[in-house]
């Protein structure tokens, strides 16, 4: 590139790809750098569940905004992104959880998000492989599923169509004021976006992001075995608490007919080995909800690292310590969903447009102020 870029995005995961797409669409000359290959990090390990979550009001705002952007984009995505508007079923085990389902439905209704409560009979009809005796579920029809690595590629291709350039296998050594250093090369630019996910603190010390490990198991093809993304209501608690170890029932039907079985959370650093004990625990939890999963054939397991922040919200906005540096990282387990909202919000902030949602809760300055490190 002879002409220096307006923006350098570090990280071609789905968040970096979405930032690049939005910035390029806004007319900026964008250069994307990735240490490995596009969509190969946390993005590749994720489930690809597009889900509205209400753990906190800012989380609900960002996921709902992103969900709308995904719905708009979906018809334009190539087939290999495997977008499937399968919806989510939040499964309640008992009356107490069913009460929580009803509360959740009210919150969604307040935000204009369609959701309906299913009776036990309706739930059994919707998902015959769930065990009998469940209390009901919240059906969120607007949720969906994508295959994350190709979703990231699709966003990058859109960015490239708007003049962006992608360089893979390029490891950034340092980030300075309006510059990026790669080996002996200094790339000058107006702004740098650190979208390196769980690796973001390596380039911007002080970002409170830690890798939160997860395991997934995928089966052979069983088309029609389940039709919705199935998540136990207790998932929210599993995702919310920063305990060292938790599992939750989370099963997803893939476009291929395969079943993706999750989920687990551990704080063990960057150890990428399969933890057999937690896989067993995770599968036991899944079998508790769907006993006939026992007779499906598992073909592969893997691990990945969610970029986790102390207050469960991503960092999106300017990093005030370094002129021209912006952060778009720390999306924990919601990066696929919130990538589009993040990209649009970040691009609006960079070019000075009025953003569609209040950027304050996501501002990285909250970290510098010591907020949210409870």
């Amino acid at each position: 590139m002879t002409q220096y870029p307006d923006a350098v995005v570090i990280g071609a995961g789905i968040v970096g790809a979405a930032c690049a797409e939005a910035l390029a669409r806004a007319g900026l000359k964008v250069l994307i750098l990735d240490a490995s290959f596009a969509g190969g990090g946390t993005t590749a390990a994720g489930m690809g569940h597009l889900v509205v979550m209400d753990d906190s009001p800012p989380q609900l705002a960002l996921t709902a905004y992103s969900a709308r952007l995904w719905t708009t984009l979906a018809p334009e995505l190539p087939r290999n992104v495997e977008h499937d508007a399968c919806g989510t079923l939040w499964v309640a085990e008992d009356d107490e959880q069913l009460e929580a389902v009803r509360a959740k439905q009210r919150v969604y209704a307040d935000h204009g998000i369609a959701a309906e409560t299913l009776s036990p009979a309706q739930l059994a009809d919707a998902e015959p492989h769930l065990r009998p005796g469940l209390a009901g579920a919240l059906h969120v029809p607007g949720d969906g599923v994508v295959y994350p690595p190709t979703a990231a590629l699709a966003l990058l291709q859109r960015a490239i169509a708007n003049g962006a350039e992608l360089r893979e296998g390029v490891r950034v050594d340092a980030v300075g004021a309006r510059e990026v250093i790669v080996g002996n090369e200094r790339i000058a630019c107006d702004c740098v976006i650190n979208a390196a996910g769980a690796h973001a603190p390596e380039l911007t010390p002080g970002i409170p992001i830690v890798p939160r490990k997860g395991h997934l198991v995928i089966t052979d093809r069983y088309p029609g075995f389940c039709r919705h993304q199935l998540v136990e209501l207790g998932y929210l608690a599993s995702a919310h608490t920063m305990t060292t170890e938790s599992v939750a029932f989370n099963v997803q039907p893939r476009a291929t007919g395969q079943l993706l079985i999750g989920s687990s959370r551990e704080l063990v650093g960057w150890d990428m080995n399969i933890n057999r004990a937690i896989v067993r625990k995770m599968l036991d939890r899944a079998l508790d909800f769907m006993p006939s999963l026992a007779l499906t054939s598992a073909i592969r397991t893997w691990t990945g690292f969610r970029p986790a922040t102390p207050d469960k919200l991503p960092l999106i906005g300017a990093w005030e310590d370094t002129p021209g540096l912006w952060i778009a990282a720390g999306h924990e387990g919601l990066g696929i969903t919130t990538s589009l909202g993040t990209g649009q919000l970040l691009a609006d902030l960079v070019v000075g447009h009025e953003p569609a949602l209040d950027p304050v809760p996501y501002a990285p300055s909250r970290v510098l102020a010591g907020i949210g490190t409870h």
Partner: protein
Amino acid sequence: MTGEYFTTGEYAGTDAEVVVADVAVIGAGPAGIAAAASAAERGLRVALLDRGLESGGQIWRHINGVAIPRVAQQWLARLDKSGAQILRRTSVVDVSVDVAGFEILAESSGRALHIRVTNIILATGAREMFIPFDGWTLPGVMGIGGAQALLKSGGSFAGKRVVIAGSGPLMLPVAAALAESGARLVLVAEQAKRSAVARFAAGLWRTPSTLMQAARYRARFMSSSYSTGTWVTAAHGSDRLESVTVTNGRRTWRETADVLCTGYGLIPNVELARLIGCETRDGAVVVDDDQRTTIANVQAVGEVTGIGGAPLSLIEGEIAGLTVGSRLSVPLPLLRRRATFEAAARRMFDVFAPRAELRALPTPTTIVCRCEDVTYGVVQDAVCARQAKLHTRAGMGPCQGRTCMPGLEFLLAWHSDTVRPPIEPALVSILSSEVAKNAPSSFLSNSCVGDVYQ
């Protein structure tokens, strides 16, 4: 609804069976049989695991009463008397290491089996390497080893026009067996150069039994055409194979054929070794003089340590059986015989290495991954196996890339992806099975020799 998917019977529950032994030998081909018999003869409690119904592996496959070589009969009789316990129809799903040793998770007829051992001998053998070309997925195209297996299990090629194209010494016995079964051998095409094959043949005097075998095989299909420096570039047919395109680099022609047997030699099954963490080099497990891998208390024998044939596998198995769990020294004659066969194996490796021209075999529309229907044009730009898997789904199907990835790694110089459990598809019930704290364990005994474990 359940019935649509599950034909393997009812869910057996999570109660796992536990077996405790001194040594687990994984794979019951010649190497595994020799290792298990030799270790059990020393009084060790040995569990020999194999996914097949009968011991013998691919090479000594003997279903339907098909005759097996005398040496195989001798070793099977020795195994029978040794006191080793054979766990048939048992496939290994995972191996984990803890302070007490190893825990092997296996699937045995739909049930979980946990095998606790202090030593492992890997005898996981080898499989054929395929290089994809246009038409290789047509019915009528099969592996050379696959054709051999089909013959051994009673399949017939009578009256069929057969082309055998590929590389390696396996082509000769298969050609002979096909000719004997009434197949019309149109062409046996060896990709290696005539001069190299001649040099290899000339070196066979060093391992006389092999030479005799080669001569016998050649005699049985004298009437058909054996060409060196020749390979198949495409297979044609609408519903099934009708003809193949053949080239020798200078001239290209068509041959009418009903069956094409193809394969570019054998590659070691190193996945389990890699899962355990054993070092591999050039696609084979690294072992020392006692067949020990780089992981303590794990040995490897036979083809998984490099392709060398049944005689070498037997010697390696015997050495591991003698040295497992001990510091016994190996008898010198055994070491000398291993050195002789190893030298022959190295020559073979050089002679039959696939030529560079084979890298041009696939076209952009050639299907490379049969599980996921991925074409060569789609994977070509990936920089490694992992990228191809994630971006194109190549190697993501039920076979987990066992068929396509070795060929693709040859074609595109990719690094292999990591190996993770399950090592082969396993029921979720197996993968989630845990040994209950008070689960009954069956301690293998060795009925033949008293408890003289050293």
